[in-house]
C-alpha cells in the first residue's frame, strides 16, 4: 500500500502546475472563453508538445502508456486553471474508446493523430430524455449496403462543435433501453446529415446538440463489435468520471486556499473574519470534506483501470456520489464565506463554484450515483 507518486509523476506534476500557473492565468482563461471557439488551439499544441494528448495511449500509437493515476495528475493540475480545452472528451473518453474497442487500423489512424494534436473528438452518447441512463440509446443505425445509416439526436455533447470526428452510440438492435444492441460509430462531424448546434455552458466551456439525419457511414466506421458496445461505453465513462473527480478535488483545494486567504485578509468588526470561530469550524469542515474527497478520488482513479467491471462501477459511483456531495458543500461555503465578493463574476471563486456544479451534473449527479451504489448493496 503506497500513496506516493513515482519520481516521474512528481516531476510531471510540477511541470504541469508551473505551466498552468504561468500560461493559464485566470485572465488568460477569461480571454480564451470569450473567443469564437471557446478554447485555444495554441494551448492544445502545447499540450501535444508536453505529451499530454497521448498520455494514456500505448507507445506504439505515439502515446506514453500512462495509467489513470497519470491522467488524474493532469486533470488535477488542469483544475487550477479551469482549463477549457477538450481534454476529457478527446483524450480520455474518445481516446479511451478507440484504445479499448478500435481495430488496428482505427488505432493507427486516430490515436497518433490525437496524440499529435491534429485530431479532436467528442463522444455523442446521451440523448434527450435519457437523463443519466447510459443504456438509453434511441438513435438508430441501420445497415445500408456494407455501411450504415444513422438517425437520431444527441444532447449536451461536450465539445461537440470543436470535434473533427464524433463517436456516436446508436442502436443496431433491441429497444431504446436494452443493454444489448448498442454499437459505436466514428462519424466525421461535417458530413452530410450531421447538424451541430453549439453553445457555451454555465462553466464557460462548450457543448452542442447534435442531430443525425440519414447519415451514411462506411463499414469501417463501426468501432468495436456490433451490439455489445455498452460495457465499453460504461468503462470509458467511468474512466471519465474518475478524472472528473480529480478535477473536482483540485478545484475544492483551490477554493479552500482562496477562502482561507480571504478569511485571513478580510477584516470586519476590527479583526480578520477568520477570527470568528463559526467561520474557523466551517473552514475546518471544508478541509475535512476535501481530504475525504481526495481519498475517494484515489480510490476511483486506481479502480478505473480495474478489470472487474462490477467493482469498478461500484467504486466509481461511490466516488462520484461522495465527491459530488463534498464539492457541493465546499463550493457553496466558499461562496458564502467570500460574502458578496463570492457571487461576483470578477473573482475566480464563482467560476470554480460553477464548474463544480456542472461537474456534478456531468455523467450522473451525486444522487444518481448514490442510488447506483446503494443498489449494489442488494447484491452484496
Amino acid at each position, binding site marked *: 500500500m503506497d500513496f506516493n507518486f513515482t519520481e516521474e509523476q512528481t516531476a510531471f506534476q510540477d511541470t504541469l502546475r508551473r505551466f498552468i500557473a504561468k500560461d493559464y492565468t485566470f485572465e488568460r482563461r477569461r480571454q480564451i472563453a470569450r473567443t469564437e471557439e471557446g478554447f485555444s488551439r495554441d494551448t492544445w499544441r502545447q499540450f501535444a508538445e508536453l505529451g499530454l494528448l497521448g498520455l494514456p495511449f500505448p507507445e506504439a500509437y505515439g502515446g506514453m502508456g500512462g495509467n489513470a493515476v497519470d491522467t488524474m495528475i493532469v486533470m488535477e493540475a488542469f483544475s487550477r486553471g479551469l482549463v477549457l480545452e477538450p481534454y476529457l472528451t478527446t483524450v480520455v473518453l474518445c481516446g479511451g474508446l478507440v484504445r479499448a474497442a478500435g481495430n488496428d487500423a482505427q488505432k493507427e489512424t486516430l490515436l497518433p493523430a490525437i496524440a499529435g494534436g491534429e485530431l479532436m473528438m467528442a463522444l455523442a452518447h*446521451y440523448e*434527450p*430524455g435519457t*437523463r*443519466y*441512463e447510459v443504456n*438509453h440509446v434511441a438513435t438508430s443505425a441501420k445497415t445500408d449496403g456494407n455501411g450504415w445509416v444513422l438517425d437520431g439526436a444527441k*444532447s*449536451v455533447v461536450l465539445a461537440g462543435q470543436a470535434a473533427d470526428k464524433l463517436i456516436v452510440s446508436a442502436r443496431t438492435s433491441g429497444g431504446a*433501453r436494452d443493454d444489448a444492441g448498442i454499437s459505436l460509430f466514428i462519424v466525421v462531424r461535417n458530413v452530410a446529415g450531421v447538424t451541430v*448546434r453549439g*453553445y*457555451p*455552458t*454555465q*462553466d464557460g466551456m462548450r*457543448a452542442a*446538440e447534435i442531430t443525425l439525419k440519414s447519415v451514411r457511414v462506411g463499414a469501417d466506421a463501426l468501432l468495436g463489435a456490433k451490439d455489445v458496445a455498452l460495457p465499453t461505453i460504461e468503462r470509458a465513462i467511468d474512466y471519465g468520471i474518475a478524472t472528473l473527480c480529480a478535477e473536482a478535488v483540485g478545484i475544492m483545494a483551490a477554493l479552500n486556499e482562496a477562502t482561507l486567504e480571504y478569511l485571513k485578509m478580510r*477584516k*470586519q*468588526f*476590527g479583526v480578520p*473574519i477568520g477570527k*470568528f470561530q*463559526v*467561520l474557523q469550524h466551517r473552514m475546518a469542515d471544508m478541509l475535512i470534506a476535501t481530504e475525504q474527497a481526495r481519498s475517494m478520488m484515489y480510490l476511483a482513479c486506481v479502480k478505473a483501470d480495474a478489470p472487474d467491471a462490477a467493482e469498478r462501477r461500484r467504486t466509481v459511483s461511490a466516488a462520484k456520489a461522495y465527491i459530488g456531495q463534498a464539492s457541493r458543500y465546499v463550493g*457553496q461555503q466558499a*461562496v*458564502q464565506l467570500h*460574502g*458578496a465578493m*463570492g*457571487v*461576483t*463574476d*470578477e473573482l475566480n471563486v*464563482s*467560476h470554480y*463554484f*460553477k464548474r463544480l*456544479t*456542472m461537474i456534478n*451534473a*456531468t455523467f450522473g*449527479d451525486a*444522487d444518481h450515483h*448514490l*442510488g447506483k451504489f446503494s443498489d449494489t448493496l442488494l447484491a452484496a
Partner: protein
Amino acid sequence: MDLNFTEEEQAFRAQARRFIDENLPADIRDKVHGGKRLNKDDFLRWHKILHKQGWIAPGWPVEFGGAGWNAVQQHIFDEECADADAPLIIPFGLRMVAPVIMAFGNPGQQKYFLPKILSGEHWWCQGYSEPGAGSDLASLKTPAERRGDHYIVNGQKTWNTLGQYADWIFCLVRTSSEGRQQEGISFLLIDMQSPGITVRPIVMLDGEHEINEVWFENVKVPNENLIGQENKGWTYAKFLLGHERTGIAGVGRSKRALKHLKEIARREVSGGRPLIEDARFRDKIAQVELELMALEITNLRVISAEREQRAPGPEASILKIKGSEIQQVLSELAMQAVGHYSLPYVHEALDAGWQGTPVGADYCAPLAGHYFNLRKTTIYGGSNEIQKNIISQMILGL
C-alpha cells in the same frame, strides 16, 4: 387556536386573485413564469396598475395613500401575487425609505417624496454597503461634509441593486468621526441625477447585471435632503431594517417555486418514467416541502403577533434564515431535475423576444442561473451568520 383563514380573509383573497388575474399583463406574467429578464418598464407597468387600484402600498397607513391592510391581508396579497407570477414589487421605495420618511422625515419631505413613491415617478435604490463595510455596516466611511446649505458627498457605495434604473438613492453617510462609529452616521436622500454620481455595473456569477457600484465625487446634496437629525442616521437605519418583515420569509414565492419544481419533476423523464416517480428525488422535494410547511406557519405566527401589535422582534431572523435556505434548495432541486440540461448557457434565451428553439425543455434555460443567483440570499440583508449572532444575542442572551 384556529389555523384556518376567516371568511373575511378568504373573501379578501378571492378579490385579490380576481384583480390580479384580470389586470396583470400577460407578457409580464409569461416573463416571470419563464424566468426571463424583466426590464424597468415591466416593473413600472405593474407598479402603476397596482397604484391605480390603490394597492401599491399594502402596509402604508391610509392617510399617506396606503391600502392600510393588516399583516395577514398583506401576507395573502403577497401569496396571490407570487402565485400569479406577478413581478416582485421593488422594495427600496415603498418598503424601505418610505417608512423612514413617514417616521422621521419632515412634512415637506413627506409631501414631496411619498406621492412620487406611490405613483412610481421616483425609483429608489439603496446606498448602504461599502467595500470595507459589509457585515460591519457601522464602519462605513463615505464622508458627507456640511458646506452651508448643502453637503458634499464623496466615496463609494456598493452592492447597490438596480441603481441603473433609479432616480433617487438613500444613503448612510459619515458626518462625524467622533465617538462611537454608530453616532457619526447620517441618512441622506440623494438625486441620482446630481453631477458627480457614477453608476458602474457589477456582473454577477450568473452573468447578469443587477448590482452596481455607485461612486460619489463632490456630489452636492441640499441640507433639506437630510432625514431627521445629523448623526442620528443609524437609528433610522435600524428602524428600517426592523420594518416590513412580512415578506422576509418569501413563503409566497417559495410556494410558487415548489409548484414549479413539481411540474418539472412530472415532466422530466428518468429511466423511462416521470422523475417524480423516483422516490429518491421525490423525497428531496418532500423534505423541502416540510420545511416550507413549517415556515409558513412560523411566518403566520410572527405575523399574527405583529397584527396584535406585539412586536415580533428577532424572530424575523428565523424567517430570514429558513426562508433563504428554502429558496436556495428549491432552485437547486429544479436545476438538478433537468440533469445535464442544466449545462447549456444560452444567454439570449432569457430575452423575452427570443424566437430560437430552447435546448432541452422550455423551462431549462433559467434554472442553473437562478440557482447561482440565489446564493446571494444567505449573504445579503445581513448574512445568515449575522442573523444567528442576532438570535444568540437578542433571543438567547449569550
